[in-house]
């Protein structure tokens, strides 16, 4: 049979979860990671990364809007997906998706963005005309109140939303890890570490993505990059990456040591079918190289321009590495037979519903959405229509 080595159960030969299912956790990972960066500012008071706060939220929203699309394209009957809302099966981790997604979208991300931008939205609704004015008016939900007290309340509530948002982000992405990690039938996926590894690699990819976007947009706007900001982001990126790498090494060492019935088959698969995507791209190019680059910037004093370039390279390599991690999990998990006696090949189509073209379009789409959001809700401190920092302690309680 074409593409099959050894023996596969007859129904296992064709892969059923395609590159779109690789893309989905990559996208939600970026969402979760970007949000964690934003929460560094809001909850952990890391003032240095404040310039990226709003950008991180908008990035998270852009990717979150696109997140359900690869799933819809994959489903045999996407028109039946509302069934997950109407009759969710409580024993299925996948059934959580609809609710977790909606909760994160509306009660965390949209809510937090709205609270932070509300003053700007109201001011824009007064200063713009035509369709834009209508749009901003709708976004105000009819409330014109931007008194210092209302803004102080927004600030406080926004803080609570971020607090809730952190575990929500973990659930949004962690449940995907659980979807894989809880499948006893598949030893490549089956691990209690899976949700944890997913979350930490998500943080790595999301933080690096916002860092890259910040540097790119600042350069595009011909402004100087705030080095204190990117240095701090890179530091967090480095430490979280160390944790992520340690977790993945733990999984690897554990597998090698235990050498259960699946080990030989999986080991062979990694060294042959996944050689390029796992050993070269994920490990060497996507993990070790950026860790070394970031490590160098942490322990040495290099000129700003050198550091910038290293951050850019590291950030890009990180994206490759984390995407490959998702690829190796999803595709890798379907390349070997559950009989441990054979392997198959993933034949990715080009222009079909689940093909490469669809994946590329869905990868570009969040940036298009982000472009629109950046125009609609500019995150740049120098572009606010009279932005005022609302400090709740300074607000006198009105009699």
């Amino acid at each position, binding site marked *: 049979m074409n593409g099959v080595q050894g023996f596969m159960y007859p129904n296992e030969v064709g892969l059923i979860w395609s590159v779109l299912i690789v893309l989905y956790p990559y996208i939600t990972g970026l969402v979760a990671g970007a949000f964690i960066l934003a929460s560094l500012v809001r909850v952990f008071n890391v003032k240095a990364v404040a310039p990226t706060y709003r950008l991180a939220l908008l990035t998270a929203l852009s990717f979150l809007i696109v997140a359900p699309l690869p799933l819809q394209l994959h489903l045999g009957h996407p028109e039946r997906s*509302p069934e997950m*809302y*109407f*009759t969710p*099966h*409580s024993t299925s981790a996948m059934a959580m998706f609809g609710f977790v997604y909606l909760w994160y979208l*509306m*009660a965390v991300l949209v*809510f937090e963005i*709205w609270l932070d931008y*509300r003053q700007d939205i109201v001011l824009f609704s007064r200063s713009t005309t035509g369709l834009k004015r209508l749009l901003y008016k709708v976004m*105000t*939900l*009819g*409330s014109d*109140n931007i*008194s210092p*007290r*209302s803004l102080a*309340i927004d600030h406080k*509530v926004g803080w609570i939303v971020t607090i809730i948002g952190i575990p929500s982000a973990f659930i949004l992405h962690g449940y995907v890890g659980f979807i894989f990690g809880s499948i006893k039938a598949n030893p490549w996926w089956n691990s209690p570490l899976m949700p944890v590894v997913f979350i930490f690699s998500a943080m790595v990819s999301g933080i690096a993505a916002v860092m890259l976007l910040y540097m790119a947009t600042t350069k595009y706007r011909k402004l100087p990059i705030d080095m204190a900001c990117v240095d701090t982001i890179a530091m967090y990126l480095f430490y979280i990456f160390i944790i992520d790498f340690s977790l993945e090494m733990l999984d690897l060492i554990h597998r090698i040591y235990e050498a259960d019935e699946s080990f030989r088959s999986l080991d062979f698969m990694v060294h042959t079918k996944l050689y390029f995507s796992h050993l070269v791209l994920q490990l060497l190019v996507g993990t070790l190289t950026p860790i070394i680059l970031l490590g160098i910037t942490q322990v040495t004093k290099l000129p700003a321009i050198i550091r910038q370039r290293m951050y850019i390279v590291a950030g890009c390599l990180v994206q490759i590495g984390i995407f490959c991690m998702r690829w190796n999990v999803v595709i890798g998990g379907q390349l070997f037979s559950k009989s441990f006696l054979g392997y198959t090949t993933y034949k990715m189509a080009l222009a079909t519903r689940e093909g490469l073209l669809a994946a590329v379009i869905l990868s570009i789409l969040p940036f298009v959405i982000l472009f629109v959001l950046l125009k609609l809700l500019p995150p740049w401190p120098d572009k606010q229509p009279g932005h005022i920092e609302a400090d709740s302690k300074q607000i006198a309680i*009105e009699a």
Partner: protein
Amino acid sequence: MNLFKDAGHLLRFAFLFVVAFAVFLVVRHFVVPKSFGQYGHYRGAAIAEIAARPVHFAGHETCETCHADVLDMKKTGKHANVNCEACHGPLANHANDPSITPPKLDTATLCIRCHAASAAKPKGFPQVDADQHSGGLACETCHKPHNPALVAEGAK
């Protein structure tokens, strides 16, 4: 109250949620199939729908109601437990309407499928090397499929 005035926008946001939830409940009431949850977390009516699928094999008991003579021949031989449609193929349409003629069988491929010699088959199972066994003669020259015991020369 002033607090209400300054937090009013939050109530508007919350109101969106309330409306959405109400709409959800209403839609759910109409959309979830009536038999869902009847026996478990699934559409109970599905069981009957699946049970109503068309049958293609009639089953040997039905064949034997008309072809009792064949049954008589079969039941004393080695093919006693080989059911009719195992060789004759699905014949529910013929049992339903006997004017539908069953397709002619090609004994050359049919007998060989089971009886071609292979070390993989159980040792006690009757198997022959097709080329050497009959020198090119069709199987039914010496073996009647309904009772394959060799008939003595001249008694046919």
